[in-house]
């Protein structure tokens, strides 16, 4: 069953078209990755799902329902959460407040559930518990990434979208973050992972898409793409 589906989506900034007729889908419980070079339109694709910028053509379906024209702030409540490019944590707020912001889309009645999710997030990232009262802007890059992932989890998303969670981090931290992503996926959350770090992403993913100049150029299982000579040459530094 498809949880997220894009049908010939077109998007861009003003006159600049970035995405051209992008069609892809993510099934419930899957880990799907989108790889592509810098400037291919990966981040634009994720932001377009949230209407920032809004798609100018095609349709975006969540659980089969057309959400293309939905207001940005209504989407978190429908079960999508984004860990955006550059983390975009709130630097002037404490770690605890950042996590609380992740749950704003959860209705008041679910407060006990929020407390349980918070406990789960702090269990996955104990460092966030230690730093709970600290201003988020003072965290290291890896800690900020963990905070961004934790914040996204606070709304109990059914599909978690991640934009280059490994960017600029030390290999050890990347491993830790990917281990947590595996755990989140194992609990039943669907993952849609955008990465330049194609090797790591394709190893984690069930399926993958390759985005080139705003168009889907290839798709296949994680192993198939890993083995593909063209993918190896362009994204994995192979020969």
């Amino acid at each position, binding site marked *: 069953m498809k949880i997220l589906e894009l049908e010939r989506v077109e998007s861009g900034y003003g006159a600049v078209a970035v995405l051209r007729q992008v069609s892809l889908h993510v099934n419930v419980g899957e880990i799907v990755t989108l790889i592509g070079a810098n400037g291919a339109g990966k981040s634009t694709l994720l932001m377009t799902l*949230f209407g*920032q910028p809004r798609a100018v053509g095609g349709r975006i379906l969540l659980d089969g329902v057309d959400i293309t024209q939905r*207001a*940005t*702030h*209504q*989407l*978190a*409540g429908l079960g999508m*959460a*984004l860990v*955006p490019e*550059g983390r*975009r944590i*709130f*630097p*002037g*707020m404490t770690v605890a*407040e950042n996590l*609380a*912001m*992740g749950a*704003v*889309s959860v209705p008041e009645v679910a407060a006990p559930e929020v407390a349980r999710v918070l406990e789960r997030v702090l269990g996955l990232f104990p460092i966030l518990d230690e730093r709970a009262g600290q*201003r988020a*802007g*003072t*965290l*290291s*890059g890896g800690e*900020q990434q963990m905070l961004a992932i934790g*914040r996204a989890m606070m*709304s109990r998303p059914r599909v978690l979208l991640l934009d280059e969670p490994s960017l600029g981090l030390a290999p050890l931290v990347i491993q830790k973050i990917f281990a947590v992503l595996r755990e989140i996926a194992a609990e039943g959350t669907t993952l849609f992972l955008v990465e330049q770090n194609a090797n790591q992403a394709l190893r984690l993913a069930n399926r993958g898409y390759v985005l080139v100049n705003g168009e889907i150029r290839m798709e296949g299982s994680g192993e198939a793409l890993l083995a593909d000579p063209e993918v190896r040459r362009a994204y994995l530094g192979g020969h």
Partner: protein
Amino acid sequence: MTGHIFAQQAVNGLVLGSVYGLIAVGYTMVYGIIGMINFAHGEIYMIAAYLTAIFLAGLTLLGLQSPPLAILLVLAATIACTALYGWSVERIAYRPLRHANRLAPLISAIGISLILQNYVRLSQGARTQGIPSILDGGFHLFASGPDAFVRLTHAQLLIVVTAIISMFLLHFFIARTAMGRACRAVQQDRVMASLLGVNTDRVIAIVFVLGAGMAAVAGVLVTLNYGSFDFFIGFVAGIKAFTAAVLGGIGSLPGAMLGGVVLGLAESFFSGFVNTDYKDVFAFSLLVLVLIFKPSGLLGVPEVEKV
């Protein structure tokens, strides 16, 4: 003797500064959240002055005798009406232009400011209006002779105390409530806040309403203290409060209050010891100096952000 004059000017400056601070909060909050100066903010203060007179007259007609109760009712009614004005200004002048060129909302706000001024002039008359004083009397502090004392009127005391309470309530709202947290989130990263599910249009409207409410408190207090007003008082008060906001560091709530108090004290001491005519020159020179040596204002801190 000089000591008494000094203390008296300090009292006067503190009172003036409280008023500037209350209005400055509106400028600083709106700037913090949408990065723009709300040029119609001074008019909100002016309208609050007129509403104070109207509600006070209404209560007197109804036969209300007790001044404390009257003040409380007038304050509540004025804040409620003025909040509606603040909401409307945002809805009419700012929201439709949210994604327009940065200059467009600025110009529409100046337009709203002119409309409000002239709407009051047409409906209330261009003459200076007044209300009878309902808060007489005061205290003589540090009295050591017939001419040697510091006078603190009841109205002045009311201004300072109400300003402090209002600031405390506002600070509590911003720092401690979920809605206040959403306001800070929108201020720090509007798109991210909306991705998480914050209705940013609603948050921006609330900030305008809060700013208008604080300006309303200032309008009521000043009217009770001075008793006279006209349709143009919003302009000068607005410029002074804007100066206070920039002086304290625009975008910072404590900065707005501090900036107001510093500006009020500076004006008051300069009037008392040097020259009344040039007090504004002195106030604005102070602003220029602060901006030269600390461009972010007294409490404005450039945001620390790791990338």
